[in-house]
């Protein structure tokens, strides 16, 4: 017991703590977050610019309105998806939930044409929230990967939807079955801006504000950043994840009602295959697929960008066959850009840890 027996000397004091610089980090980090969203915004502007040069009518009021209208449903879905992705989960069932909610609200209106619009919206959101709660409960209680669970409910909700449609007397609900008051919502404008888009924008602002400024919102980021640490920090992980899924479901339900108002032809296929677009919008918008970072504003910009591509390609005179390819290339470009930026940030943070070399 020689060395341990003699009390080991306490570590010699050193005159200074390791150096860390102060506020430059803050501006750098904030700048990066802004840059991320600015990057997408710049891409969007560039695309619009190119399209306008090729076809000046792109900027016409009608076209802009159409563009915003087209983007609004995807935007609502992307906002909801962001809440879920931030917690290191994903919800692939949103397309099916949208379909279910759209068909439900169509059925409600066809059977009770007098229902006020707000009640229809609430009903759609309730349907969506129920689906979301089911997803969230399985994920949170059984602690199983959400990718698998929602892949399962993607099939199951769609199956329910078409089972419902085929067993009811209305396989397809058409514009003629819907009351005028509801249909007018699809084209309605406020100050020249489509109401559907205003709804989507309100959703984005609300969600964005919540995620940034409320404790439970920040906890969602914490959960996604490190689930084990979240549990040790006393965050009610299961409950938060459940709520995230429920809110996302409710927003998908809302998107379903908007879909009904806009397309007015509702059958069991509404929203099929939408899930990848939604995830793509979020990813393009800088929401990290493994949780913990990204903002709903970015996701909304992503949705707008994807929609703009969809509408501007034909106007650029490009073969419509190029559309999917362009969307794919864009997604890749966005994640590469995002990666490059965050690498640069990491390098600078590391560089500032160590001085002198």
């Amino acid at each position, binding site marked *: *017991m*020689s*060395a*341990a*027996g003699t*009390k*080991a*000397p*306490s*570590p*010699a*004091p*050193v*005159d*200074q*703590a*390791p*150096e*860390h*610089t*102060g*506020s*430059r*980090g*803050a501006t750098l*980090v*904030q700048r990066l977050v802004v840059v991320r969203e600015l990057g997408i915004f710049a891409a969007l502007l560039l695309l619009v610019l190119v399209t306008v040069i090729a076809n000046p009518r792109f900027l016409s009021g009608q076209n802009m309105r159409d563009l915003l209208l087209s983007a609004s449903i995807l935007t609502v879905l992307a906002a909801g998806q962001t809440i879920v992705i931030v917690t290191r989960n994903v919800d692939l069932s949103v397309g099916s939930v949208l379909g279910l909610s759209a068909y439900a609200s169509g059925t409600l209106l066809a059977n009770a044409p007098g229902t006020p619009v707000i009640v229809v919206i609430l009903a759609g959101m309730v349907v969506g929230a129920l689906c979301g709660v089911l997803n969230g409960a399985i994920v949170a209680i059984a602690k199983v990967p959400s990718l698998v669970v929602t892949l399962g409910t993607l099939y199951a909700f769609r199956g329910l939807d078409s089972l419902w449609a085929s067993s009811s007397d209305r396989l397809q609900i058409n514009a003629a079955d819907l009351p005028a008051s509801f249909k007018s919502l699809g084209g309605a404008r406020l100050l020249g801006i489509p109401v559907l888009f205003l709804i989507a924008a309100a959703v984005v602002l609300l969600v964005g504000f919540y995620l*940034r*400024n*409320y*404790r439970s919102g*920040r906890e969602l*980021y*914490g959960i*996604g*950043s*490190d689930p*084990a*640490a*979240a*549990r*040790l*920090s*006393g*965050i*009610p992980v299961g409950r938060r994840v459940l709520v995230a899924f429920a809110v996302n479901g409710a927003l998908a339900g809302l998107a379903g009602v908007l879909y009904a108002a806009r397309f007015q032809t509702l059958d069991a296929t509404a929203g099929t295959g939408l899930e990848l677009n939604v995830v793509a919008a979020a990813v393009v918008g800088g929401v*990290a697929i493994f*949780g*913990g*970072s990204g903002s709903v504003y970015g996701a909304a910009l992503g949705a707008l960008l994807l929609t703009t591509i969809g509408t501007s390609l034909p106007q650029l005179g490009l073969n419509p066959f190029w559309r999917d390819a362009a969307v794919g290339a864009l997604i890749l470009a966005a994640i590469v850009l995002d990666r490059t930026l965050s690498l640069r940030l*990491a*390098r600078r*943070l*590391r*560089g500032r*840890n*160590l*001085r*002198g*070399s």
Partner: protein
Amino acid sequence: MDHAPAPPAPGRPTTGSVVLALDDVSKNFGAVAALRGARLELRTGEAHALVGENGAGKSTLVKILAGVHGPDSGRLLLDGREVTLDNPAAARAAGIAVIYQEPTLFPDLSVAENIFMGRQPLTGGRRIDRKELASRCRALFDRLGVRLDPDRPARGLSIADQQMVEIAKALSFDARVLVMDEPTAALSGVEVERLFTVARSLRAGGAAVLFISHRFDEVFALCDRITVMRDGQWVSTDPTADLTVDQVVRRMVGREVASLFPKIDVEPGEVVLEVRGLTRLGVFADVSFDVRAGEIVALAGLVGAGRSEVVRAVFGVDAYDSGSVRVSGADLRKGSPAAAMAAGIALVPEDRRQQGLVMELSVERNATLTRRWKLARFGLLSARGERATAEEWAARMHVKAGKLSDPVSTLSGGNQQKVVLAKWLSTDPRVLIVDEPTRGIDVGTKAEVHRLLSQLASDGMAVVMVSSELPEVLGMADRVLVMHEGRLVDDIPRSRADESAVMLAATGQGGTTAVAS
């Protein structure tokens, strides 16, 4: 988190009332009995040490206090009343703050948010008050003497800084009971001193501090009483003043421990490892040194000096920008651990959970991972061959494990470290690099590791040892290389190596001796 300055302590309150007590607590993980009738009693205004070998159940006990695990049997008493802590939030509400053995930070969130997660200061509208958040964070850091930007993300913090953030978090609770599970393992001298100052002021303010460490100097310097645990059971609780290190160690181990630093003197042979002008921009620069067969070379320095980065670059896990590495005269391809292994280098990394082991895989798979190609016949592996090799090495390293087919995550920290060593020694390396080989390891195991290193060197292996523990460096090394801020600043032979020489160089005040070439 307005911390009222601690009232001046009127002397040491040695007999405060009991705030928190564990009584006859047991906890099983599957077939492993982590705790069997453990006991603990914390009083107000005391700093209480919990010591025990690796796997004695210290961390498990902490997690029961923290509400992470529920005990299978036994009672938890808070102010004399029995309570059940179902989750970490409940423990926190009861005034128990915990610094876990492994950092639990959110890499994507800012440092300030990490500290105040779930307790961020609010404005009237229940919104987070960001300004207040940053200023409280800064106040905490001032108290700890840390200079960190509250708004930077936790990602990329060094282990030491991560630990400081954890400490700040625990402090911010203003808790009645502060539990620290090996908080100093990654800290350097100054930081440890600061932590102790804070802990003492908390104690003076009437809080109870539970301190877990494998470093006896710290335990004796800080704590009023010491509880010893062995094999999940309570052994003894006594005032520090009545104990010597020897006694504690004997109680922990239940047997005599051989000399801690059994250095065997060896005549160094050929140069095996040559590092020349190794530079990684922003991390380390112009690092050159040689290691001979039979030599133990220690790489010393303050935490964050870049030692780990150097050995990682040598082993090829990290890239480097310029310089070269030669093994037995042959150039080593850069950036390829496989090439390094083929050349006979082995690296026992500093973070065993992240880097050393695949936690979900079994002990045997981990132990044979580095030898998977050698064990294969015609490209195929046989389960029996793997098992036999694993058994042999587990026996040689005295690994304490339930079954070799259990996940290595079920082993205690020290036994995990032995598996890492086994995994690398089984490759029969010419150069063994060990990064913090005894971090978080109990005395008994530590001595075993040291004897092993010494033995290996005397058998002709070249050993590079990165260590933050001065006694270990001085006791084991033939030569001490000292790094400061990414540069190699000194090369001290065993004859001249003493504490002050190493510390002076490490803090950048030593003479910048030209280093071996």
